[in-house]
């Protein structure tokens, strides 16, 4: 019996550590360098697609709208996903409060090509595009208003990002 109690405690400690890491990671903005994007494409186990399709730039056709002049939040959502709804509310409010910021929500099921191209593993994943519509970074998991503002700010600090001249 004491062994079993230790087993139970070990399982709970493991679950607690997992949950802490998960909630810490949720919504955090991770900048993607172009070098990393290129390497990620080479190490993909899928057959390498033609170079033109792995462009980190998203076209208005893919987005369904014109990208924002400052930033575009491309939210990949699934229907079986409650945090996707909360994230959509946060990002659409941000887009309406900040000129030049656009929020697009795409369903993963209809956009599997994008999911593979950007190695999206969970929903919601938000690709953060700069003014030139290239992917500058991403956030996954529920995005809070605070996270979204932080990503906008770090976008401004990125090399080649929106800068005052």
């Amino acid at each position, binding site marked *: 019996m004491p062994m079993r109690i230790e087993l139970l405690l070990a399982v709970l400690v493991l*679950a607690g550590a997992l949950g802490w890491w998960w909630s810490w990671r949720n919504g955090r903005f991770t900048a993607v360098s172009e070098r990393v994007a290129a390497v990620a494409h080479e190490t993909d186990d899928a057959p390498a697609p033609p170079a033109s399709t792995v462009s980190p730039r998203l076209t208005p056709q893919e987005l369904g709208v014109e990208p924002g002049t400052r930033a575009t939040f491309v939210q990949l959502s699934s229907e079986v996903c409650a945090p*996707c709804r909360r994230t959509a509310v946060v990002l659409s409010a941000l887009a309406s409060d900040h000129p030049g910021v656009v929020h697009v929500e795409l369903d993963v099921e209809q956009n599997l090509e994008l999911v593979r191209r950007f190695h999206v593993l969970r929903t919601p994943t938000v690709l953060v595009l700069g003014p030139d519509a290239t992917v500058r970074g991403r956030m996954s998991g529920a995005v809070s208003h605070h996270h979204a503002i932080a990503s906008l700010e770090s976008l401004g600090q990125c090399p080649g990002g929106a800068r005052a001249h």
Partner: protein
Amino acid sequence: MTDQTSTPGDDGRTPDAPTSDGRAPAARTPAGGTASGRSPGGIDPRGPRVGAAITAVLLAVTLLLGTGGAALALLAVIAALFLVGTVRGAQGSVQGRVFRALVQPRLAPPTELEDPRPPRFAQGVGLVITGAGVLLGAAGVVAAIPTAAALALVAAFLNAVFGLCLGCEMYLLGLRLRSRSAG
């Protein structure tokens, strides 16, 4: 001697405005229709989390019971609870009924509603894990009983304590695997 402070004139008035403004309306409510016409049948998101807490306690007891017949029987009961939740949704499960009968009346109304499909998907994941444990345990692989209980306990604990939506984490991986094998 009757002090006429309370006049029985206005019956229809609801006592919703206490003098201390305990709940002043927010300065700016979000633009109307933020739900943007999503599925109308939302559920209280606290329901599945309370249900997961109940499930987690049952799974912890299963783990303490070890590999015997009692552990197998309790795991079978939990699998049956997951089956009910998978068929009827988390709000229709036994744990969901316990929440509505005992917990929800003591809570404030929910500030947001949740789509019932993600918790239902999670019930299905729980059914697969515990069901496999029951089948293997009944077939003589007794180590499967605490293994399945531990795995399901981690998932239920994460749901109850952190609000982790297992369906959200697993759905896309499943979709990618299925589409890869199909094409």
